[in-house]
């Protein structure tokens, strides 16, 4: 046997294809699309009930998220405790989530308990009462949590950044103050509920150990609603932005965000921008991480992101850095952006970034829930079902020149706004 030569890397093979298992859409007797995806032997299910009831739909601060949170706090026939007991008893979880573009109620349960849980979910969606005492508790507790958030440099920096980039009116920069909680009334919640939950739904997804019988049951459930086809439009047009510094005394670290308004997933250059973002700050091997953390030790972590919304988007770099080193960190960040604007990314680095990009795509479709999440992106943004195979080809074919062009187009130093919060 030849001795082991550790200095030679084992051969690796490139990822040859990415095929995303497609969620199947069935429109039952009602118009409601039910998307399902089978892929587990564990007898578990995840059901998502998706509503056009996100922050972009509210006319008063906090109403969308408060309606979403308080929906499970009492119906005509069940009080909050009975709802919680009813679901918990079967080991099920009901999660609520309210985002800019939509809101949802997610049920996690074992297959054998689905019918019992669906009864409670339907009650919550049809007969929620928003009792005054529950609103009081919610308001008080949320104000307490807000107080804690407002002590964090990361929160203060994020808030200022979104307001600077999207303006005060955008649902993306919809942050509230303590007093806004006092303006929540039961009537407003009931109004939002009846308009956006009680009668209409966007779609339902089922993933996990799905059977024919389950699909029929859920279709029947959908029959209680009509299809909500409303769209969200809130594209911001804020022009000039200014750098901001927020003083937070006695902070031992400062949070730093540098970025700009950009575009969303539907834009033709989004995918190249994603790859460029990866090289700059999107993974552990990125230039920012290597320079600011691994070479200079100025931070525990620095990353850059593209954030996509149905009607807007942004790009930013964020890090918590040593208070005394903000200047150096900022200068180094701009230096890295300049390098990408001027010099070509070496072949080896680009090769690594591409392989990592495709590898993380593969990892992101491990299991029925994450595969459904990927399918939902296509659905929500109206992207072609070949999106991921096209993405695969496009990433493989992108050259260093292409990325420099992308950088020249979208990452100009003068277009970036800088927000710092620290001591």
């Amino acid at each position, binding site marked *: 046997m030849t001795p082991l030569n550790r200095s030679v890397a084992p051969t690796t093979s490139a990822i040859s294809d990415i095929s995303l298992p497609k969620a199947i859409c069935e429109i039952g007797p009602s118009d409601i699309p039910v998307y399902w995806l089978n892929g587990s032997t*564990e007898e578990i299910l995840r059901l998502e009930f998706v509503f056009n009831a996100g922050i972009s739909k509210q006319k008063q601060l906090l109403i969308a998220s408060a309606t979403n949170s308080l929906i*499970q706090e009492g119906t005509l026939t069940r009080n909050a405790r009975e709802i919680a007991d009813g679901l*918990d008893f079967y080991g099920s979880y009901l999660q609520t989530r309210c985002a800019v573009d939509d809101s949802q109620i997610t049920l996690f349960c074992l297959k054998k308990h689905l019918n019992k849980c669906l009864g409670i979910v339907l009650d919550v969606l049809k007969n929620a009462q928003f009792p005054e005492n529950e609103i009081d508790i919610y308001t008080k507790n949320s104000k307490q949590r807000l107080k804690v958030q407002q002590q964090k440099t990361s929160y203060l920096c994020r808030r200022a950044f979104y307001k600077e980039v999207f303006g005060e009116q955008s649902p993306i920069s919809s942050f509230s103050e303590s007093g806004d909680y006092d303006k929540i009334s039961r009537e407003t919640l009931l109004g939002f509920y009846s308009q956006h939950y009680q009668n209409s739904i966007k779609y339902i997804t089922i993933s996990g150990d799905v059977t024919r019988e389950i699909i029929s049951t859920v279709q029947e459930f959908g029959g209680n609603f009509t299809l909500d086809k409303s769209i969200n439009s809130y594209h911001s047009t804020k022009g000039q932005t200014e750098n901001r510094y927020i003083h937070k005394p006695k902070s031992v670290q400062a949070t730093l965000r540098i970025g700009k308004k950009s575009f969303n997933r539907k834009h033709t250059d989004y995918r190249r921008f994603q790859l460029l973002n990866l090289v700059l700050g999107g993974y552990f091997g990125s230039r920012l991480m290597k320079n600011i953390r691994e070479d200079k030790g100025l931070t525990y972590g620095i990353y850059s992101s593209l954030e996509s919304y149905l009607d807007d988007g942004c790009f930013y770099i964020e890090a918590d850095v040593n208070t005394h080193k903000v200047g150096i960190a900022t200068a180094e960040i701009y230096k890295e952006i300049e390098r990408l604007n001027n010099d070509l990314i070496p072949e080896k680095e680009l090769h690594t970034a591409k392989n990592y990009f495709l590898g993380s795509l593969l990892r992101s479709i491990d299991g029925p829930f994450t595969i459904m999440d990927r399918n939902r992106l296509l659905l929500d943004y109206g992207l072609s079902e070949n999106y991921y195979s096209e993405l695969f080809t496009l990433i493989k074919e992108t050259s260093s020149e292409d990325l420099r062009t992308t950088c020249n187009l979208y990452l100009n130093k003068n277009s970036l706004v800088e927000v710092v919060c620290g001591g």
Partner: protein
Amino acid sequence: MLYKVGSKDEDPEKTGFAHLFEHLMFGGSENVEEFDSVLQVAGGENNAFTSNDITNYYITLPANNIETAFWIESDRMLSLNFNPKVLDVQKSVVIEEFKERYINKPYGDVWLKLLPLAYKVHPYNWPTIGKDFSHIETATLNDVKDFFFNFYAPNNAILVISGNISLDKTKELTDKWFGPIPRREVKRRAYKKEPLQSEKRTLDVYNDVPLDMIVMGYHMCERLHPDYYAADLLTDIIGSGRSSRLYQQLLKKNPLFSEIDCYQSGDFEPGLIIFEGKLNKGVSHAIAEEAIENLIADIVTNGVTEEELEKVKNKTETNIRFNDLGVLNKAMKLAYASYYGDTDLVNTEATHYLGVTQNQIQQVCAKYLKPENCNVLYYHSKK
């Protein structure tokens, strides 16, 4: 790859070292200069974490590139390259991590305060990040070498592979890459068991925090003790979810708290059952503490209902099934079970939980959740 070394193995004068060392494991080994980029080229990703008991490294990558993982993981077991610059930079990184997670946010220092109060002799006395950053600042390259050759040995590690690979292939690759690495003598510091606590301990914390908070830590049993499953379910009955006793009684019915949790620390050796609650305006620490103690006393006197127990068993069943979904979760669970000394636990865990009785829950509650076994932090907000 689980190494059987954690912060409990540290010198009390050089705390935070196991975790600092975890960072150094990415700084290059004898034949692999850049651990991360080699893996990224293969489409993979990795990370690691350190606990009181263990240090765990994990890699996820496309199945056909698995040999790359064997190569780099075995090479850093063989030997690191002990680059002085890596040590210098990672000390700064860890100090920034210390600030980000423990100092620069309200209540980040709970563990820094609670552990020294609860543990007087056992090395669970300090959190994995360390007691203080001066300990991290003084680490030398010699400390690093000693630690490596003492603990990072094949006979002190557990390797788990999960995914689309056969047993034969797994054995072949393991023999090829790890087989040639010799055993090393592992010396552990001797430490004492924590003696039974006989009196409630308290500490007032005056910090720049926005709300008053109370934290109560009770000593519990070790992971392999027969009481463990009952104690774990007890914390669920008390504090898990919206139907739990804490949520219903002290957040809803008599709203003393705006947030309240009960959980156990999940340590291998005797850990803690922790209550952590933020007080509503006008509620004193004394009232909050009494309310929690009354809630416990009610279980000690009257036990829990059959429905409550069935509920938390059902929840546990759901959790186990959902957790068994991904390849990474499966690997982690196997590594832990093997570390505990009972690999079959991955199959029998659910049965242990299902076997718990109402009586056991009541007994465990009386045994562990008693005032003289408790350590309390009172956080006073700035008025």
